[in-house]
């Protein structure tokens, strides 16, 4: 375990570098294959619409994986994460075109904890002009060991 960040230099309120994450249908298919989650709502529009969803939606865990990159890129060491949690607050529809959709993910230092641990509040929003204030994750939090 060896993080790039120095505990003493971290302040509550620090913003971690955000990332824009494009998501296309092929990304969902790749994630289905790599994770073993073949629920058809993540690749079959017919099933998704019949189940009352607006379109095929991204796997919640794909959204969380992409969001977690904000902290693992920051510390440099993915093994620095000691806990991770979130609520999936709204679906991420992915249209069947060459653009798909995109997420804006970020993080902010929420708390400095004992034993050189840092709690980071994570955020993930649809990167869409009409719907840009819609959080797709809430109560998303990672604790890292520096």
């Amino acid at each position, binding site marked *: *375990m*060896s993080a790039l960040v120095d505990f003493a230099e971290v302040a509550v309120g620090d913003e971690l570098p955000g990332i824009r*994450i494009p998501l296309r249908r092929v*990304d969902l298919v*790749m*994630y289905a*294959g*790599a*994770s*073993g*989650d073949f*629920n*058809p*709502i993540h690749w079959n529009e017919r*099933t*998704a619409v*019949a*189940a*009352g969803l607006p379109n095929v*939606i991204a*796997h*919640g*865990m*794909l959204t*969380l*994986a*992409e969001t*977690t*990159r904000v902290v*693992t*890129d920051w510390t*440099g*060491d*993915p*093994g620095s*994460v*000691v*806990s*991770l*949690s*979130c*609520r*999936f607050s709204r*679906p991420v529809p992915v249209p069947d075109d060459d653009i798909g959709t995109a997420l804006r993910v970020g993080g902010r230092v929420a708390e400095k904890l004992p034993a050189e641990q840092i709690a980071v509040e994570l955020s993930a929003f649809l990167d869409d002009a009409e719907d840009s204030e819609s959080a797709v994750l809430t109560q998303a939090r*990672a604790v890292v060991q520096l």
Partner: protein
Amino acid sequence: MPAYHVGREQIREFATAIGDNNPAYYNVDAARVLGYQDLIAPPTYPFTLTMRAMATAIFDPDLGLDYSRVVHGEQHFEYERPISAGDELVVRAQIASIEARDRNEFLTTRCRVQTVQDELVVTTSEIIVSRGTAV
């Protein structure tokens, strides 16, 4: 259920699928520089194992879940250490509760991911939601 052997290529394939190019997921030397014996897996990787363990319950006809109505509601991980290539893992899964709120049903599970030598690696809890199926 037999132990799940975590392989390097699986970790690389998973990391590629989540678009994450952290060298600790691809390059053994880079993982060793960070102090690990072998490639480590991304923090969300344990869900691929806990989901397999929960599938037994999710697809149990007696529980009667319609999979296309199921979405992920909540997820928690507590790590003792990252999962690493070469690990032989088993999952101890339990259904903690099933409750209905409005028209939705909430299934809460808790899982312990441990090695075949009984070393605890990750503890998880997850809530899956069956949308619009409560009577």
